[in-house]
Protein backbone atom coordinates (compact mmCIF):
# COMPACT_ATOMS: atom_id res chain seq x y z
CA UNK A 1 0.00 0.00 0.00
CA UNK A 2 1.47 3.36 -0.99
CA UNK A 3 1.55 6.38 1.27
CA UNK A 4 -1.22 7.99 -0.76
CA UNK A 5 -3.52 5.01 -0.42
CA UNK A 6 -2.70 4.89 3.24
CA UNK A 7 -3.74 8.50 3.75
CA UNK A 8 -6.96 7.98 1.79
CA UNK A 9 -7.93 4.96 3.81
CA UNK A 10 -10.89 5.67 6.05
CA UNK A 11 -9.95 5.77 9.71
CA UNK A 12 -11.58 3.10 11.84
CA UNK A 13 -14.44 4.02 14.15
CA UNK A 14 -12.22 3.08 17.05
CA UNK A 15 -9.61 5.60 15.86
CA UNK A 16 -12.24 8.35 15.67
CA UNK A 17 -13.49 7.43 19.13
CA UNK A 18 -9.94 7.47 20.54
CA UNK A 19 -9.05 10.86 19.01
CA UNK A 20 -12.20 12.48 20.39
CA UNK A 21 -11.83 10.81 23.76
CA UNK A 22 -8.49 12.61 23.91
CA UNK A 23 -10.19 15.88 22.94
CA UNK A 24 -12.79 15.33 25.68
CA UNK A 25 -10.19 14.53 28.31
CA UNK A 26 -7.98 17.50 27.48
CA UNK A 27 -10.80 20.04 27.15
CA UNK A 28 -11.09 22.02 30.31
CA UNK A 29 -14.26 24.06 30.52
CA UNK A 30 -15.75 23.19 27.15
CA UNK A 31 -16.63 25.39 24.21
CA UNK A 32 -13.81 27.50 22.90
CA UNK A 33 -11.08 25.79 24.94
CA UNK A 34 -11.59 22.62 22.87
CA UNK A 35 -10.60 24.20 19.54
CA UNK A 36 -6.80 24.11 19.93
CA UNK A 37 -6.98 20.41 20.86
CA UNK A 38 -9.22 19.51 17.90
CA UNK A 39 -6.82 21.45 15.68
CA UNK A 40 -3.86 19.55 17.01
CA UNK A 41 -5.42 16.09 16.86
CA UNK A 42 -7.84 16.09 13.92
CA UNK A 43 -6.19 18.73 11.71
CA UNK A 44 -2.42 18.50 12.28
CA UNK A 45 -1.90 14.89 13.31
CA UNK A 46 -4.63 13.10 11.37
CA UNK A 47 -5.30 15.52 8.52
CA UNK A 48 -9.02 14.64 8.60
CA UNK A 49 -10.25 18.22 8.20
CA UNK A 50 -8.78 21.69 7.68
CA UNK A 51 -8.58 24.35 10.35
CA UNK A 52 -11.09 26.48 8.41
CA UNK A 53 -13.57 23.61 8.41
CA UNK A 54 -13.20 23.23 12.17
CA UNK A 55 -13.90 26.96 12.62
CA UNK A 56 -17.03 26.65 10.46
CA UNK A 57 -18.21 23.61 12.39
CA UNK A 58 -17.64 25.43 15.65
CA UNK A 59 -19.55 28.50 14.44
CA UNK A 60 -22.52 26.41 13.31
CA UNK A 61 -22.22 24.19 16.39
CA UNK A 62 -22.90 27.22 18.58
CA UNK A 63 -26.17 27.78 16.73
CA UNK A 64 -27.40 24.23 17.32
CA UNK A 65 -28.91 22.92 20.50
CA UNK A 66 -26.80 20.91 22.91
CA UNK A 67 -23.16 20.78 23.88
CA UNK A 68 -20.90 22.70 21.50
CA UNK A 69 -17.97 20.28 21.84
CA UNK A 70 -20.22 17.39 20.80
CA UNK A 71 -21.69 19.33 17.88
CA UNK A 72 -18.24 20.21 16.53
CA UNK A 73 -16.99 16.66 17.02
CA UNK A 74 -19.96 15.08 15.24
CA UNK A 75 -19.38 17.39 12.25
CA UNK A 76 -15.76 16.22 12.02
CA UNK A 77 -16.76 12.57 12.48
CA UNK A 78 -19.43 12.85 9.76
CA UNK A 79 -16.93 14.42 7.36
CA UNK A 80 -14.42 11.60 7.93
CA UNK A 81 -16.72 8.58 8.02
CA UNK A 82 -20.36 9.52 7.67
CA UNK A 83 -23.03 8.89 10.28
CA UNK A 84 -21.17 6.17 12.17
CA UNK A 85 -18.13 8.45 12.34
CA UNK A 86 -20.29 11.16 13.89
CA UNK A 87 -21.62 8.78 16.51
CA UNK A 88 -18.10 7.51 17.31
CA UNK A 89 -16.89 11.11 17.77
CA UNK A 90 -19.78 11.99 20.11
CA UNK A 91 -19.24 8.89 22.24
CA UNK A 92 -15.50 9.63 22.31
CA UNK A 93 -16.02 13.15 23.66
CA UNK A 94 -18.55 11.96 26.23
CA UNK A 95 -16.49 9.02 27.52
CA UNK A 96 -13.89 10.88 29.66
CA UNK A 97 -16.59 13.08 31.23
CA UNK A 98 -18.52 10.00 32.25
CA UNK A 99 -15.52 8.30 33.83
CA UNK A 100 -14.07 11.38 35.54
CA UNK A 101 -17.33 12.70 36.96
CA UNK A 102 -18.46 9.28 38.17
CA UNK A 103 -15.13 8.85 39.98
CA UNK A 104 -15.32 12.30 41.54
CA UNK A 105 -18.96 11.92 42.55
CA UNK A 106 -18.25 8.54 44.12
CA UNK A 107 -15.07 9.68 45.88
CA UNK A 108 -16.52 12.95 47.11
CA UNK A 109 -19.83 11.61 48.42
CA UNK A 110 -18.54 10.22 51.75
CA UNK A 111 -16.81 13.53 52.55
CA UNK A 112 -19.57 15.94 51.53
CA UNK A 113 -20.90 16.20 55.10
CA UNK A 114 -17.56 17.01 56.75
CA UNK A 115 -17.64 20.59 58.08
CA UNK A 116 -14.40 21.53 56.30
CA UNK A 117 -15.75 20.31 52.94
CA UNK A 118 -19.03 22.15 53.55
CA UNK A 119 -17.08 25.33 54.21
CA UNK A 120 -15.03 24.85 51.06
CA UNK A 121 -18.24 24.48 49.06
CA UNK A 122 -19.70 27.62 50.66
CA UNK A 123 -16.69 29.45 49.21
CA UNK A 124 -16.95 27.64 45.88
CA UNK A 125 -20.61 28.67 45.45
CA UNK A 126 -19.53 32.29 45.69
CA UNK A 127 -17.02 31.69 42.88
CA UNK A 128 -19.72 30.04 40.75
CA UNK A 129 -21.98 33.08 41.14
CA UNK A 130 -19.18 35.41 40.03
CA UNK A 131 -18.25 33.18 37.06
CA UNK A 132 -21.86 33.02 35.86
CA UNK A 133 -22.14 36.81 36.05
CA UNK A 134 -19.04 37.08 33.85
CA UNK A 135 -20.61 34.68 31.33
CA UNK A 136 -23.82 36.72 31.39
CA UNK A 137 -21.84 39.90 30.64
CA UNK A 138 -20.35 38.25 27.55
CA UNK A 139 -23.73 36.92 26.40
CA UNK A 140 -25.35 40.30 26.99
CA UNK A 141 -22.92 41.97 24.57
CA UNK A 142 -23.66 39.40 21.87
CA UNK A 143 -27.39 39.13 22.39
CA UNK A 144 -28.92 42.45 23.45
CA UNK A 145 -28.38 44.75 20.52
CA UNK A 146 -31.51 46.86 20.09
CA UNK A 147 -34.90 47.64 21.60
CA UNK A 148 -36.47 44.36 20.39
CA UNK A 149 -33.81 42.14 21.91
CA UNK A 150 -34.01 44.17 25.15
CA UNK A 151 -37.77 43.56 25.26
CA UNK A 152 -37.31 39.84 24.55
CA UNK A 153 -34.77 39.72 27.39
CA UNK A 154 -37.14 41.46 29.81
CA UNK A 155 -40.06 39.25 28.82
CA UNK A 156 -38.07 36.01 29.08
CA UNK A 157 -36.62 37.11 32.43
CA UNK A 158 -40.03 37.92 33.89
CA UNK A 159 -41.59 34.69 32.63
CA UNK A 160 -38.75 32.54 33.96
CA UNK A 161 -38.46 34.35 37.31
CA UNK A 162 -42.13 34.86 38.11
CA UNK A 163 -44.08 32.05 36.46
CA UNK A 164 -43.82 28.27 36.15
CA UNK A 165 -43.81 28.30 32.35
CA UNK A 166 -41.32 25.70 31.15
CA UNK A 167 -37.90 26.67 29.86
CA UNK A 168 -38.60 24.72 26.66
CA UNK A 169 -41.71 26.78 25.93
CA UNK A 170 -39.89 30.07 26.56
CA UNK A 171 -37.14 29.06 24.10
CA UNK A 172 -39.65 28.00 21.44
CA UNK A 173 -41.48 31.34 21.80
CA UNK A 174 -38.20 33.22 21.42
CA UNK A 175 -37.44 31.40 18.16
CA UNK A 176 -40.87 32.34 16.79
CA UNK A 177 -40.49 35.94 17.97
CA UNK A 178 -37.02 36.24 16.46
CA UNK A 179 -38.26 35.05 13.09
CA UNK A 180 -41.40 37.21 13.21
CA UNK A 181 -39.44 40.35 14.10
CA UNK A 182 -36.50 39.84 11.73
CA UNK A 183 -38.05 38.20 8.71
CA UNK A 184 -41.49 39.75 8.63
CA UNK A 185 -41.51 43.01 10.59
CA UNK A 186 -38.02 44.22 9.66
CA UNK A 187 -38.00 42.55 6.24
CA UNK A 188 -34.60 40.99 6.91
CA UNK A 189 -32.96 44.30 7.72
Amino acid sequence: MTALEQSKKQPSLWEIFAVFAKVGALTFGGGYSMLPIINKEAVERKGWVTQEEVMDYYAVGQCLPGIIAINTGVFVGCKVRGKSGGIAAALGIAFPSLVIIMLIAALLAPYMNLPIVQKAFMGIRVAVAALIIQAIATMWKKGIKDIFTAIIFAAAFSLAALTNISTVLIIICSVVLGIVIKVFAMKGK
Partner: protein
Amino acid sequence: MIYVLLFYEFFKIGLFAVGGGLATIPFLYDLAVKHNWYTNQDVVDMIAISESTPGAIGLNMSTYVGYTTAGVLGSIISTIAIIIPEIIIVIIVSKVLNQFSSSKYVVSAFYGIRPTVTALICVACLEVLKVSVFNWGEFLQSYNWAALVNYKAAILFALVLFLVFKFKKHPVYYIAGCALAGMLLF
Protein backbone atom coordinates in the same frame (compact mmCIF):
# COMPACT_ATOMS: atom_id res chain seq x y z
CA MET B 1 -39.22 4.35 36.20
CA ILE B 2 -36.35 6.65 37.09
CA TYR B 3 -34.21 5.66 34.07
CA VAL B 4 -36.94 6.38 31.54
CA LEU B 5 -37.63 9.71 33.22
CA LEU B 6 -33.92 10.62 33.23
CA PHE B 7 -33.66 9.72 29.55
CA TYR B 8 -36.72 11.81 28.68
CA GLU B 9 -35.59 14.87 30.65
CA PHE B 10 -32.03 14.85 29.31
CA PHE B 11 -33.15 14.18 25.76
CA LYS B 12 -35.24 17.35 26.11
CA ILE B 13 -32.25 19.30 27.43
CA GLY B 14 -30.13 18.11 24.49
CA LEU B 15 -32.84 19.26 22.13
CA PHE B 16 -33.51 22.68 23.63
CA ALA B 17 -30.43 23.92 25.50
CA VAL B 18 -28.93 26.24 22.89
CA GLY B 19 -25.72 28.08 23.72
CA GLY B 20 -23.44 25.57 25.36
CA GLY B 21 -22.83 24.27 28.88
CA LEU B 22 -24.28 27.11 30.95
CA ALA B 23 -27.52 26.97 28.93
CA THR B 24 -28.23 23.64 30.62
CA ILE B 25 -28.39 25.28 34.08
CA PRO B 26 -31.95 26.68 33.79
CA PHE B 27 -33.12 23.18 32.83
CA LEU B 28 -31.32 21.64 35.79
CA TYR B 29 -33.17 24.02 38.12
CA ASP B 30 -36.42 23.01 36.42
CA LEU B 31 -35.61 19.38 37.22
CA ALA B 32 -34.80 20.22 40.85
CA VAL B 33 -38.25 21.78 41.25
CA LYS B 34 -40.12 19.20 39.20
CA HIS B 35 -38.67 15.92 40.46
CA ASN B 36 -36.86 16.75 43.71
CA TRP B 37 -33.89 14.69 42.52
CA TYR B 38 -31.53 17.16 44.19
CA THR B 39 -31.67 20.58 45.83
CA ASN B 40 -30.96 24.01 44.33
CA GLN B 41 -27.79 24.05 46.38
CA ASP B 42 -26.67 20.75 44.82
CA VAL B 43 -26.98 22.36 41.38
CA VAL B 44 -24.41 24.99 42.34
CA ASP B 45 -21.99 22.36 43.63
CA MET B 46 -22.42 20.37 40.43
CA ILE B 47 -21.67 23.49 38.36
CA ALA B 48 -18.49 24.06 40.37
CA ILE B 49 -17.27 20.48 39.91
CA SER B 50 -18.21 20.48 36.22
CA GLU B 51 -16.26 23.68 35.64
CA SER B 52 -13.16 22.48 37.44
CA THR B 53 -12.81 19.01 35.87
CA PRO B 54 -11.86 18.07 32.28
CA GLY B 55 -14.67 17.69 29.76
CA ALA B 56 -17.40 19.93 28.41
CA ILE B 57 -19.50 21.49 31.18
CA GLY B 58 -22.83 20.26 29.78
CA LEU B 59 -21.59 16.67 29.65
CA ASN B 60 -20.13 16.82 33.14
CA MET B 61 -23.39 18.18 34.48
CA SER B 62 -25.53 15.53 32.82
CA THR B 63 -23.24 12.80 34.13
CA TYR B 64 -23.28 14.32 37.61
CA VAL B 65 -27.05 14.73 37.78
CA GLY B 66 -27.52 11.20 36.44
CA TYR B 67 -25.15 9.80 39.04
CA THR B 68 -26.71 11.76 41.91
CA THR B 69 -30.17 10.63 40.84
CA ALA B 70 -29.67 7.00 39.86
CA GLY B 71 -26.03 5.92 40.20
CA VAL B 72 -23.71 4.65 37.46
CA LEU B 73 -26.47 3.54 35.10
CA GLY B 74 -28.25 6.85 35.64
CA SER B 75 -25.19 8.82 34.64
CA ILE B 76 -24.69 6.76 31.47
CA ILE B 77 -28.35 7.13 30.51
CA SER B 78 -28.55 10.89 31.06
CA THR B 79 -25.32 11.51 29.13
CA ILE B 80 -26.37 9.31 26.21
CA ALA B 81 -29.78 11.01 26.25
CA ILE B 82 -28.31 14.51 26.07
CA ILE B 83 -26.08 13.67 23.08
CA ILE B 84 -28.60 11.74 20.93
CA PRO B 85 -30.58 14.79 19.71
CA GLU B 86 -27.32 16.56 18.89
CA ILE B 87 -25.96 13.66 16.87
CA ILE B 88 -29.17 13.51 14.83
CA ILE B 89 -29.34 17.27 14.29
CA VAL B 90 -25.68 17.59 13.29
CA ILE B 91 -25.89 14.65 10.87
CA ILE B 92 -28.81 16.39 9.16
CA VAL B 93 -27.25 19.85 9.22
CA SER B 94 -23.86 18.60 7.96
CA LYS B 95 -25.54 17.78 4.64
CA VAL B 96 -26.80 21.35 4.19
CA LEU B 97 -24.05 23.17 6.06
CA ASN B 98 -23.66 26.11 3.69
CA GLN B 99 -27.35 26.83 3.30
CA PHE B 100 -27.82 26.46 7.05
CA SER B 101 -25.43 29.13 8.27
CA SER B 102 -26.60 31.72 5.73
CA SER B 103 -30.32 31.01 6.13
CA LYS B 104 -32.20 34.11 7.23
CA TYR B 105 -34.48 31.93 9.34
CA VAL B 106 -31.55 30.55 11.32
CA VAL B 107 -30.07 34.03 11.78
CA SER B 108 -33.44 35.40 12.89
CA ALA B 109 -34.11 32.52 15.26
CA PHE B 110 -30.84 33.38 16.94
CA TYR B 111 -31.83 37.01 17.15
CA GLY B 112 -34.60 35.79 19.47
CA ILE B 113 -32.74 32.97 21.23
CA ARG B 114 -29.67 34.93 22.39
CA PRO B 115 -31.46 37.46 24.65
CA THR B 116 -33.73 34.67 25.93
CA VAL B 117 -30.88 32.37 26.92
CA THR B 118 -29.15 35.35 28.58
CA ALA B 119 -32.34 36.01 30.58
CA LEU B 120 -32.72 32.35 31.56
CA ILE B 121 -29.15 32.23 32.82
CA CYS B 122 -29.74 35.49 34.77
CA VAL B 123 -32.65 33.79 36.56
CA ALA B 124 -30.45 30.75 37.24
CA CYS B 125 -27.80 33.11 38.60
CA LEU B 126 -30.33 34.50 41.11
CA GLU B 127 -30.79 30.94 42.36
CA VAL B 128 -27.03 30.62 42.75
CA LEU B 129 -26.87 33.91 44.67
CA LYS B 130 -29.65 32.74 47.01
CA VAL B 131 -27.49 29.87 48.27
CA SER B 132 -24.13 31.63 48.14
CA VAL B 133 -24.30 35.32 49.07
CA PHE B 134 -27.74 35.26 50.70
CA ASN B 135 -29.15 33.00 53.41
CA TRP B 136 -32.36 32.74 51.41
CA GLY B 137 -33.66 29.48 52.90
CA GLU B 138 -33.31 30.75 56.47
CA PHE B 139 -34.71 34.14 55.55
CA LEU B 140 -37.91 32.59 54.19
CA GLN B 141 -38.45 30.90 57.54
CA SER B 142 -37.63 33.83 59.84
CA TYR B 143 -38.03 36.99 57.71
CA ASN B 144 -35.12 38.31 59.70
CA TRP B 145 -33.67 41.01 57.43
CA ALA B 146 -30.45 41.24 59.41
CA ALA B 147 -29.66 37.61 58.54
CA LEU B 148 -30.56 37.89 54.84
CA VAL B 149 -27.07 38.65 53.60
CA ASN B 150 -24.11 36.47 54.48
CA TYR B 151 -21.66 39.35 54.91
CA LYS B 152 -18.48 37.32 54.71
CA ALA B 153 -19.73 35.71 51.50
CA ALA B 154 -20.77 39.11 50.12
CA ILE B 155 -17.28 40.53 50.65
CA LEU B 156 -15.68 37.44 49.06
CA PHE B 157 -18.17 37.73 46.19
CA ALA B 158 -17.29 41.39 45.51
CA LEU B 159 -13.59 40.50 45.52
CA VAL B 160 -13.97 37.49 43.20
CA LEU B 161 -16.24 39.41 40.83
CA PHE B 162 -13.58 42.10 40.56
CA LEU B 163 -10.84 39.54 39.92
CA VAL B 164 -12.93 37.61 37.37
CA PHE B 165 -13.49 40.73 35.27
CA LYS B 166 -9.97 42.07 35.74
CA PHE B 167 -8.01 38.87 35.06
CA LYS B 168 -9.74 36.52 32.67
CA LYS B 169 -8.15 33.37 34.13
CA HIS B 170 -9.57 29.87 33.89
CA PRO B 171 -12.55 29.22 36.24
CA VAL B 172 -10.66 26.49 38.11
CA TYR B 173 -8.37 29.12 39.69
CA TYR B 174 -11.28 31.08 41.15
CA ILE B 175 -13.01 27.91 42.32
CA ALA B 176 -9.85 26.61 44.04
CA GLY B 177 -9.15 30.02 45.59
CA CYS B 178 -12.68 30.30 46.93
CA ALA B 179 -12.62 26.76 48.30
CA LEU B 180 -9.59 27.78 50.34
CA ALA B 181 -11.16 31.09 51.34
CA GLY B 182 -14.32 29.22 52.38
CA MET B 183 -12.40 26.89 54.69
CA LEU B 184 -10.75 29.86 56.38
CA LEU B 185 -13.68 32.30 56.45
CA PHE B 186 -16.85 30.40 57.27
